[in-house]
Each structure stands twice: as structure tokens, then as C-alpha cells.
């Protein structure tokens, strides 16, 4: 979804007219024009969306293109919005992907197959909307866009109400009605063809529905959206495009609104955009600069190449912010203050996350410039780190050798603690990961074992993690201690890895997959199971510990017909341990991908695990000869619990484990 | 056995008890807890605390009474003393009007001190009793367990104390004088209550046994004195419990030890001997059986402590062990597992003991 700011901007921009427009907009082609395409001139400050001003097919008369460029105050973002595929800064392949999808699904309209849905994701400002707009224009179809209606509480004028029925005093226009309106919009957009007005081109009866704003209700109850989508999938006649911006600050919009199962169910195609590559960004910026230089005639100062590079990197692949910064920086009266832009001369920060995507095994020198300390004073985005990268930084802990002179020497008896200079600041890494220190430590805990080779080291590391948890144990002081705890965890982990103590001895551990922490799930299950045990077996009047460690495990060994089905199921699930099947089967390792926002969608995860658990359980039962848990089995039937010799079981496990990791 | 209602501040529940006993008391004569029954009736009966008794006696003879601060370990007669004195001063009728008793269980925030204490203190009183005898023209406010008052409440008290000094005397009672703020202690005459000497205690207990018709062995009474550590209330409470549990039978030493939750010294000594001489495995078994017997680790720790202090180890060894003891005590207070903690303590003792040999 859009970032908050632009969402607000859009909402206010469309304040008056947008509410009914989606449904009836086509009736007033004259009104629609200025809103979607040309209103940028009227409300320059409010409309900040990059390139969204791609002329709407209906309104876009060729002359419009020149007209706004004459206005000096217009944001460059609007002025230089792409008009063709060539102008798009998005990677060619992605554009092609979207284009293919659009063409296929636009053309199948005749043979009625139901609505098809495309989901575009990617960081903000990477050109998702622009791509759709441009392609739609080139494919000659209309884009019909949903805008969130305003809630009546915020309206002061009565015009809105009069639009409906001035006599009926309906108040309490609730948010659900936004959902209703959305549904209505989809239905109408789907059902009614564009009214053929005089002068309209005949060909444009193809259309795409574009949804970028989601009614708030959907975030609270994604189920509503899914229901609407399901009905749309049945009845829809034109392609529907959703655009959701990811952001690493834990905005899990796309996962919340479009969970995997729904995506599969409705055959939603998902195309994920990457941040704009620095080279294309450079190209774009230089183009704008040259054009600007040609037209402005001295009104703007032209920034030199290094400034452009800086802008380029500071924006971390966000075209919109880059162009905005460019415009700001090239204003004459500000240009004297060049130093602001180059606060740290000599070091040109490579945008952290772009750097990562380019190559995993980067040379040390580029790592060098990658120090987190550098940032732009104005206009730069916070160089936030994706969790994957942040974890990598701590776990790989790059070091550099000291200059011979400055190297502090530890006395001989402490020499084992001698470490080379760290190339990173752990606290900053954690801060930039946009996660609580506690959660970050959990991620570290899940993954650190792979990076250690020595048992002593790992013992020390685990001790530091334990220390960190202990520091935050006291409830009353937790807020203060949290930071220290994180420091202890990260720095302790880095320090204790003696294999990576020296810059030159940093043998390449190679790429190790990172995984999401199991602990949250495990502790949740632990609590749930304990709770379930107590409520199911309350009639035994036992305290929890003896219930869980004595009664239940033995109940599993006995065959006692007095239990009800829920109890039987629980005993089967909990009181039995998979003694002879692979122990890790319950906990699938969930690989952490490079762009994972790092928050755990516990619900969905839980469901998945439950399923996998169920299957694991079934497998376990079917492989076990004579399952001891079967409560129906007669009393006389001897219940043998197969007990494999330990070594065998372990060997088996080891093999399987290794396999598992590799497959990840 | 009724002593359970009372606990450390035996007088505290008096007001409620009277109320509560109302309906049920008519149905059946409730046994009175012995701690109440044998509480000293007059100052002369107070055992073992000569200085206080002297001061209070003077005041009984007509001298003014200072503000008092009684401190000392529990069960040494602090509350009993002031109550006995007050009863003598005012007689049974005036007693309830003239004495206000507040303890830690009562709401005793700063607000209460301000209102309840002030209101009571502001009542003026006459200098004679209903029966014509003279009585001192002041009231007494007893603040039991004063060390659990917040500092703010204590601070609020000092002003009240000075302002009402014409009509009111305060008696603060606490276990630790260090927890009373300086301004308050300086306004009071302090009296330290010493733990009762064994013979005094024994005498009292024998006295009670006689009156209650209890059969006892000499060892049982000595054991009572020993486990109660100079706390007479505890001793009397235990005595009543044992008497109740045993019915008509004779009270024995083991019964006393059982009721007090004390680990028989045989077991503790055995454990220590294993630590000094035995192997780790034997120690493990010994600790396990101690826990299985249900003894509380804190109790075991206390008794090991006493034994270690007297043991023939050098100072360095003792300090290393007691250091570990402090740690174990803290861990136990935090809720750590008793078995593991005792094991780790015993492991340290073992290690230290082996160093000397």
C-alpha cells in the first residue's frame, strides 16, 4: 500500500469528488479528466505519487503533455512522469511480465472466465503504478481506479449528503459501508461499460480496474476482502490489479490482505517489483536534469554528477523520492548549501540494501563504503536494513585489521580476547532492522549455530544470549534494559566467535540460509497445550506439572475407554513423542528471504504448522507398528512401544537433518 | 492452635475478632489461643525486659510517658508489654476509647495516618477514670509493625506526633529499627527487646503445660525452646499445635521438631558428613532423599549454615561456603529448583572440604 503520507495526500486530493466517482465517473468524462490526470497542476503539494499522472486514456489529449511542463512550480515527479515503456525506470523483464499478464487477460474477456486478479508488490516508489498506467495506455485500455471515500464525519459541507438524499437523515455512515462501496464499485466497474460519449475513441472499451487504496476495514478483517474477491472471481469480466507497497518497517499489508492460501485459491498472479536499479535511476535523473536545464533558463542550477549519484544512492531505489530531492536540490537559492548534501565527503554510501541485492559476495572495499554511519542530511531515505541483511551483518561480523600503530594490544593473559576492528555498529544494525531487540535476538538465536565451528565459542555465545534474556527479565526495568540486552546479545555473539576474530582469518563460511525463529511458535504451542491439558483433564484434580509429566504420558500408555474424543485426540497429539521418526518434522525450517520484513505472521504460520503437524503425526502413526495410542484397541492387546536403539535413531536424524538444510 | 489467627502481631486482629466472634460465639465457646490466654495481664508479668518495665512502672505511678519505640525480634513481648501497660493505665472500660491500634495488615498509607491518626489524636480526654481513679490525660496510639510503613507515611507521622504531644503518646513497634526514619526515632525513647533467655522461656512453657494439663517430656520442652529461637510466641504456638495434634498423648521431642518443620539434626549432620568424606553420588542420593522427605530447602540451608559456622574448617573455606549460601538463598527466593540449588551448595562444600585434606 502507499505510504501514509501519500495516502493522506491522495485522500485529501480526492476529497470532494472521489466518493461517487468510481461508480459514476464515466458519466462525467469532463470531470474525470482533471481529477486523475491533470489535477496535479491544481494541487501540486498534495499529489506526490510518482508518475501517476500518466495521462488517462480518456482525458489525455496529446497537448496536455506540453502544457504542464510550462508551469515552473509543478513537481518534477509529475512533469517527468513516464509516457512510454522506454521511459520507465523499471526493469524490462518486470514490465514485460506485467504486459504479458495484461494482454492475456484483457483478451480473454470475450470468452467469459471470471475475473482475474494481479497483485503488484514492491517497495514504494519503484514504479508499480506507473507501469500499469503506461501499459494500460499502450494497450489502449482504460484504467478505472478505486479511491477510498471520505467518511462523513470529516465533512463539513453538506454537498455530499445532498448527492444522495437530502431528506433522509442518515448518520452513522460506518466504515463497513466503505466496504460496501468498494464492493459496489467493483460490481459496477465490472458490469457497466464506459458510456460512449461523443468524441471518445471507439477502441477503449477494454479496461483494467486498479486498486491501490484499501478500505480500512480490510486490514481489520481481511476476510471481507477475500469474500468480495471470490465473488469477483466468479462474476468479474475485466482484470483487476491490486498494488501493495511493501515496506520493511513491518507493514505486512500484502501478507495480511493476500495470504498465500487466498492467492492460490483465486489464482492471483503476484509480480514483485524490486527497487529501481541505480543505473536506471542515474539515467533517469540525468535525463531530467538535461531537460530541465534546457527549459528553465537559469532558474534552476544544475547539480553535477556526484550530487546525482548521492541522490541516487540516498533514495534506495525510490524514484519518487529521488526526483523530489533532485528538484529540491536544484533550486537556485538552496544550491549554495551544497555541503548539506555531502555531509561526509569522500565516502559515497552505497545504498545498503541495493548493495546486497547486487551481489552477496561483495568485495571488501565495497563493504567498506557500506558503513551505516553515512547518510544524507536532506531528502535521503533512512537507510533501513532488511532483516536478512541485518542478521547477516551480525553473524558474518566483518572486521578489518588495525593500522599497525593504533592497534591496542591486550596483555598476554587476555590475548584470547584480542579482536580486530569491527566494521559495523551492532546497535545501529538492530535499530535499522526496525525490530525490537528481543525479537532480533530470537532471530540470532535461531541462526547462530551455523556460523560457529568451535564448541567453546558456541558455549560462550549461548551464554551471552542467556545473559541478554536475563537482563530483560525484570518486568519493571525492562524498557531500560532492553537496549542493553540487545547489545549484550549482538556484541557477545560477535565477540565469542573466535574463528572470526581477525580480519584475515575470516574464512568464508559461505552462504548459510537463515531461518525464522521457532521459539515464538514453540512457546505458544507450549502454553496452548498446557492450557488445553488442564481444561480437558480438570476432573483429575491434579496440578499442572504432575498432570503433564505423569498422568498424561501414562494415560497414553494405558487404554482407558472413559475418555472423551477431545481427550483422546489430545493425548495422541501431546503425550506421544515421536521416538522413532525424525524429530524436526514438526518444526519446518522456514527460510528467511532477503526481503522478509521480519515480522511473524503467527496466525498463518500456526495454521501451516498445524497442518504439517497433523501430517507428521499421521505419518508417525502409520509408520509405527501397532500404535500404542489407539484407545480402541482391546485391553488384552499388548501395547508395544517400539524403542529404537539410540544410535540408530540419531544416525537417522543426522542424515535427515543435513538433507533438510540443504533443501533450504 | 488459635495462634494461627494471630501470627506475628497477635493483637492486630482483636477488633475484627470481637466482631466476628459475635454470632458464632454464642453458639459455642471458642477456645482462646494460648498466646492470648497467657499474655501478660500487667507490666509486672512481662518476662525478661527489665528496662522497659521500669520505665512503664514509673509512668503507672504517675509520671509522664514518653513516646515509645520498641524494637527487637518477634515474640519478645513488645506488643504484650504496651498492651499490659495500657490496660493498667486505663482499666478495662476506658481501654477501648483511649487506645488505637494499627498494624501492617490495616490499610496504613499516608492517607490513613493523616486522617485516622489525626482524628483520634485530636480527641481530648479527661484525667480521671469512671471509677474515680486517676489516669493519665493522654491517649495511646500503637503502631505495630511500623517498619513496614512507607517512608512517606512515616514522614507524615512526625508532624502529627509533635502537634498532638499534649494529648497523645505514640508507641511504635518494629523488628528493625533501621527501617524507621531518623526523625521518628529521635522523637521516641527507644527500647530494645532482647530474645528471651532459654530458662525464662522454659519456665513460661512449663507454667502453661501445668495449667493446661499437658503431659510432656523434658526433651520436648527443651526442643521447643531450641526451635523457637527466643521467640516466646512461636514456642507457645507450637506447644498448642502439638497438644492439639497429639490429643491425650505425651508430647515428645520428635513431635515438636515435626511441627516446627525443622530438619532433624541427624539428617543434616549426615549430609554434611557425606559432603566432607563421601562421594558425589552419595551426596546426590542424600540430597534427593532430603527433598523427598519434604523438607524445605530454606530450612535445610539455615541448619547447614549453623553447622558450617561451627564446623572445623578454616576461615577461607567457611567464607567460600557461606558466599555460596547467600547465592543459593537468593536463588531459592527467586523460585529456583530446590534440588538443584542444594546440590550446587553441597558440591561447593565438598570441593572446599577436599581442599584442606
Amino acid at each position, binding site marked *: 500500500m502507499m505510504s501514509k503520507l501519500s495516502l493522506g495526500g491522495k485522500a485529501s486530493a480526492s476529497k470532494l469528488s472521489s466518493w461517487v466517482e468510481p461508480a459514476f465517473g464515466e458519466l462525467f468524462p469532463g470531470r474525470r479528466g482533471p481529477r486523475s490526470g491533470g489535477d496535479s497542476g491544481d494541487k501540486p503539494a498534495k499529489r506526490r505519487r510518482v508518475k501517476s499522472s500518466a495521462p488517462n486514456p480518456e482525458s489525455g489529449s496529446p497537448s496536455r503533455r506540453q502544457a504542464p511542463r510550462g508551469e515552473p512550480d509543478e513537481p518534477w515527479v509529475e512533469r517527468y512522469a513516464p509516457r512510454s515503456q522506454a521511459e520507465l525506470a523499471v526493469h524490462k523483464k518486470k514490465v514485460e511480465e506485467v504486459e504479458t499478464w495484461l494482454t492475456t487477460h484483457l483478451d480473454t474477456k470475450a470468452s467469459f472466465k471470471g475475473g482475474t486478479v494481479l497483485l503488484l508488490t514492491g517497495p514504494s516508489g519503484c514504479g508499480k503504478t506507473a507501469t500499469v498506467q503506461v501499459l494500460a495506455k499502450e494497450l489502449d485500455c482504460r484504467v478505472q481506479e478505486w479511491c477510498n471515500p471520505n467518511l462523513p464525519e470529516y465533512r463539513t459541507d453538506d454537498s455530499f449528503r445532498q448527492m444522495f438524499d437530502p431528506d433522509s437523515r442518515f448518520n452513522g455512515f460506518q466504515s463497513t459501508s466503505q466496504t460496501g462501496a468498494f464492493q459496489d464499485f467493483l460490481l459496477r466497474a465490472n458490469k457497466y461499460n464506459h458510456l460512449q460519449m461523443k468524441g471518445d475513441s471507439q477502441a477503449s472499451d477494454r479496461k483494467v480496474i486498479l486498486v491501490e487504496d484499501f478500505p480500512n476495514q480490510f486490514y481489520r478483517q481481511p476476510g471481507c476482502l477475500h469474500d468480495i474477491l471470490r465473488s469477483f472471481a466468479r462474476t468479474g469480466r475485466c482484470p483487476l490489479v491490486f498494488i501493495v507497497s511493501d515496506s520493511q518497517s513491518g507493514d505486512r499489508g500484502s501478507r495480511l490482505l493476500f495470504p498465500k492460501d487466498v492467492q492460490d485459491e483465486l489464482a492471483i498472479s503476484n509480480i514483485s517489483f524490486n527497487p529501481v536499479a541505480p543505473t536506471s535511476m542515474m539515467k533517469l535523473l540525468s535525463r531530467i536534469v538535461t531537460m530541465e536545464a534546457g527549459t528553465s533558463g537559469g532558474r534552476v542550477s544544475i547539480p553535477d554528477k556526484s550530487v546525482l549519484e548521492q541522490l541516487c544512492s540516498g533514495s534506495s531505489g525510490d524514484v519518487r523520492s529521488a526526483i523530489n530531492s533532485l528538484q529540491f536540490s536544484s533550486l537556485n537559492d538552496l544550491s549554495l548549501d551544497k555541503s548539506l548534501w555531502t555531509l561526509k565527503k569522500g565516502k559515497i554510501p552505497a545504498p545498503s540494501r541495493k548493495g546486497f541485492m547486487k551481489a552477496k559476495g561483495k568485495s571488501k572495499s565495497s563493504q567498506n563504503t557500506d558503513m551505516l554511519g553515512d547518510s544524507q542530511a536532506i531528502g535521503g531515505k533512512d537507510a533501513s536494513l532488511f532483516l536478512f541483511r541485518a542478521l547477516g551483518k551480525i553473524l558474518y561480523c566483518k572486521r578489518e585489521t588495525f593500522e599497525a600503530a593504533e592497534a591496542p594490544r591486550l596483555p598476554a593473559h587476555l590475548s584470547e580476547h584480542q579482536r580486530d576492528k569491527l566494521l559495523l555498529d551492532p546497535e545501529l544494525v538492530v535499530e535499522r532492522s526496525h525490530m525490537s531487540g528481543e525479537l532480533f535476538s530470537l532471530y540470532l538465536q535461531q541462526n547462530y549455530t551455523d556460523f560457529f565451528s568451535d564448541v567453546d565459542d558456541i558455549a560462550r555465545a549461548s551464554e551471552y544470549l542467556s545473559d541478554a534474556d536475563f537482563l530483560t527479565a525484570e518486568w519493571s526495568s525492562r524498557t531500560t534494559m532492553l537496549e542493553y540486552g540487545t547489545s549484550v546479545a549482538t556484541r557477545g555473539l560477535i565477540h565469542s566467535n573466535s574463528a572470526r576474530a581477525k580480519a584475515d582469518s575470516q574464512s568464508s563460511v559461505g552462504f548459510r540460509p537463515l531461518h525464522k525463529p521457532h521459539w515464538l511458535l514453540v512457546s505458544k504451542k507450549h502454553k496452548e497445550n498446557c492450557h488445553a491439558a488442564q481444561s480437558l483433564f480438570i476432573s483429575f484434580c491434579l*496440578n499442572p506439572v504432575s498432570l503433564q509429566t505423569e498422568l498424561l504420558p501414562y494415560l497414553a500408555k494405558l487404554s482407558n475407554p472413559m475418555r472423551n474424543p477431545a481427550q483422546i485426540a489430545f493425548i495422541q497429539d501431546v503425550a506421544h513423542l515421536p521416538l522413532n521418526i525424525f524429530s524436526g518434522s514438526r*518444526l519446518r525450517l522456514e527460510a528467511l528471504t532477503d526481503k522478509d520484513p521480519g515480522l511473524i505472521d503467527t496466525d498463518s504460520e500456526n495454521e501451516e504448522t498445524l497442518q504439517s503437524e497433523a501430517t507428521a503425526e499421521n505419518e508417525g502413526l502409520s509408520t509405527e507398528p501397532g500404535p500404542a495410542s489407539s484407545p480402541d484397541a482391546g485391553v488384552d492387546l499388548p501395547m508395544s512401544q517400539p524403542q529404537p536403539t539410540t544410535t540408530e535413531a540419531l544416525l537417522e536424524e543426522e542424515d535427515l537433518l543435513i538433507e533438510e538444510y540443504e533443501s533450504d | 492452635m488459635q495462634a494461627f489467627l494471630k501470627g506475628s502481631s497477635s493483637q492486630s486482629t482483636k477488633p475484627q475478632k470481637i466482631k466476628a466472634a459475635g454470632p458464632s460465639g454464642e453458639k459455642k465457646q471458642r477456645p482462646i489461643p494460648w498466646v492470648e490466654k497467657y499474655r501478660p495481664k500487667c507490666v509486672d508479668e512481662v518476662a525478661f525486659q527489665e528496662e522497659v518495665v521500669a520505665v512503664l512502672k514509673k509512668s503507672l505511678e504517675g509520671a509522664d510517658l514518653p513516646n515509645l519505640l520498641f524494637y527487637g525480634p518477634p515474640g519478645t513481648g513488645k506488643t504484650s508489654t504496651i498492651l499490659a501497660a495500657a490496660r493498667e493505665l486505663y482499666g478495662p472500660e476506658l481501654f477501648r476509647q483511649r487506645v488505637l491500634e494499627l498494624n501492617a495488615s490495616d490499610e496504613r498509607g499516608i492517607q490513613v495516618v493523616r486522617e485516622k491518626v489525626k482524628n483520634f489524636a485530636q480527641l481530648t480526654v479527661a484525667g480521671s477514670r469512671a471509677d474515680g481513679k486517676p489516669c493519665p490525660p493522654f491517649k495511646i496510639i500503637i503502631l505495630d509493625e511500623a517498619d513496614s510503613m512507607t517512608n512517606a507515611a512515616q514522614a507524615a507521622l512526625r508532624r502529627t506526633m509533635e502537634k498532638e504531644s499534649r494529648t497523645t503518646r505514640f508507641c511504635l513497634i518494629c523488628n528493625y529499627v533501621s527501617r524507621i526514619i531518623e526523625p521518628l526515632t529521635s522523637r521516641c525513647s527507644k527500647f530494645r527487646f532482647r530474645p528471651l533467655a532459654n530458662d525464662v522461656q522454659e519456665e513460661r512453657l512449663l507454667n502453661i503445660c501445668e495449667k493446661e494439663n499437658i503431659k510432656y517430656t523434658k526433651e520436648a520442652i527443651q526442643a521447643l525452646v531450641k526451635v523457637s529461637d527466643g521467640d516466646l510466641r512461636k514456642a507457645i504456638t507450637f506447644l498448642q499445635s502439638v497438644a492439639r495434634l497429639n490429643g491425650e498423648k505425651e508430647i515428645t521431642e520428635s513431635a515438636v521438631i515435626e511441627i516446627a518443620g525443622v530438619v532433624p539434626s541427624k539428617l543434616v549432620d549426615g549430609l554434611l558428613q557425606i559432603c566432607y568424606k563421601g562421594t558425589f553420588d552419595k551426596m546426590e542420593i542424600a540430597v534427593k532423599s532430603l527433598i523427598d522427605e*519434604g523438607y524445605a530447602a530454606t530450612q535445610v540451608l539455615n541448619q547447614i549454615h549453623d553447622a558450617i559456622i561451627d564446623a572445623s574448617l578454616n576461615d577461607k573455606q567457611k567464607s567460600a561456603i557461606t558466599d555460596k549460601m547467600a547465592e543459593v538463598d537468593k536463588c531459592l527466593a527467586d523460585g529456583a529448583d530446590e534440588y538443584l540449588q542444594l546440590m550446587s551448595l553441597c558440591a561447593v562444600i565438598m570441593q572446599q572440604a577436599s581442599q584442606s585434606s
Partner: protein
Amino acid sequence: MSLWVDKYRPTSLGKLDYHREQANQLKNLVQCGDFPHLLVYGPSGAGKKTRIVCLLRELYGAGVEKLRIEHQSITAPSKKKIEIDTIASNYHLEVNPSDAGNSDRVVIQELIKTVAQSQQIQSSTQREFKVVLLTEVDRLTKDAQHALRRTMEKYMSTCRLILCCNSTSKVIAPIRSRCLAVRVPLPSVEEVCSVLANVCKKEGLQLPPELARQIAEKSGRNLRKALLMCEACRVQQYPFSGEQEIPETDWEVYLKETANAIVSQQSPQRLLEVRARLYELLTHCIPPEIIIKGLVTELLSNCDGHLKAEVAQMAAFYEHRLQLGNKAIYHLEAFVAKFMAIYKKFMEDGLDNFMF
């Protein structure tokens, strides 16, 4: 068909199988008329609960055995709703206040107030008080214990408390001094054997004494466990034989395997596997402190002299942390890693000494 543990549970003080002396004392107590608050403590499986139920029966007659499970919801002053299950008869109420977590104080106050204020339904019972049975008092917060102390005094006239816990270490002194403490030790091996023999006789089974003894020893004198084991033996094989293998619970076997895994190899890779196993145990409702205790017992049997002392120290240290910390896995894992390091060093040193 109920479990043997329940089926042959003694129902009166006179029928208790062991600690007869104590049973008599309790009888005396009941006959005395006035009944103090009780604090019953002892290890798990010693028969505390059985004793208490017998006592209640002695107090009120058979009526206490008519139990009903009630689901109470209590609203805290902070408007927070607390749900808790209670077991009640007409004369008593049993609750485990630690179920309510940090709101245990409110639960205690409200429940006792309700019980104390509701008047006795039947005048036929000779008692003018009801009993509130609080289990796991040692797991109460300090706050709740202080509140309990006050509540005990306040409702003394209509309500008696029986507190039940494993150890008095975690019960604050003011509460201990207000209660008559009753210690219930574990039955001796012989006592366990005789109980087992009795139960088997009633079931019409032949129990060889060797097997009874084995069960008693293996159960660690925990009578509940012994009876469950015995019943499991019955399911496994009948007629019994003296050398019969006694079935262990899955988690104990699993824990043993885990300990073996730790001893047989010390590497980061192995630590990861052990972690997976720990997670498995946790999801199967095994409390972390039980896991660490079980591991220690197994590991200790695998090492020598001074290493044992070191391991015992470590275990105590990390178990303490476990109690205080938020995430048990950190501490469990640190314990395992630490053990691995020590053990590996020990083995290597041993090897060196051997070679030179």
C-alpha cells in the same frame, strides 16, 4: 473404568496406607472442634491431596465427594476479566490460583470473599466454616501471598484455608506462622510396595515382589507414578514377571536420548539438533525446569568426579535463570552448550593424559 490411582484412593483418614501417625493427629485435630488453617507440604506424589480429601470427609462427611466443576469469571478492579476453573462441593472450594498468572491476588480475594460470605446452606453440618483449598501456593506471587495473609485473618470466622504446596521455601513467613504446617514425606520404598501389592490384590492380580520393588524404585517413591507405572505394566504384559521391563513415558525416553546425543558428540551441529529436541519436548507440555532437571540427572551419570560438581553448579545457575528469564530456550541451550564445552575439554584432557 477409572485409573487405579483414583479407584483405590483412600477416602478416610483411617484408611490411609502410610504415615498413620500423622493421620491420627489429623483426626485429633478434627475432633478438637476448632480447626486452624493448614499448610500441607511435601513432594509431588506423596499423597497430600489424598490426605486433604480424607480430612475434608472427616470434617463434613460424604457430602464433600459430590464435586462439581465450575467455571468462574472474576472481574478485577482494572476491569480485566479473569477466567478460572474451580472444583467445589457444598462445603469446600478448590482452586489453583496460580492459573490466573499475575492476577492471582484478585482471584484469591474474590473467591475467598464469596465463599466466606455465602452462609452455610445446611445447618446439619456441625461446622460453622467452609474450607477453601488452594493448591500450588508456592507458585503464588508475593503480592498475592501478602493479600492472602490479610484475607486469612479477615474471614477466619466463616472460612478456613488449606494450602497445598510442594515446598514451604516459597511461602512467606507470615503465612507459615498463621498455619499449622503438615509435612507429607514421600512413602518409603516398602510402603510403596505394600500399596502396590494391595491394589493388585484388589484387582485380582499377582504382583511379584521383585517387580513391585522395581516399580517403587523407578518411580522415585512417587506413589502416583508408581501406580500409573504398575497399571502400564499390566497393559504391557500379564501375568507379571519379575524381570519385566517397566514402561517409561515417551518424554523420559526422549530426554534420555537427548542426553545421549549431547554426550556422544559436541558440535554446533549437534547443538542445533538438541535444540530441535528441546522444542519438541516443550511442545509436548514438558515444563522447562523438568527438562533441565532430567537432563542433569542423565548427564551427571555420564561424567566423573569434579566434572559432576561443575555440572551441578551450572545446572543450578541456568535453572535459576530459567525461572527469572522470559524465554526458556536461551537458558536451556546455554546449559547444553556449556556442558558440551566442559565435557569436550574433559574428554580431550583425559585423552592427552592417556597418551603421555
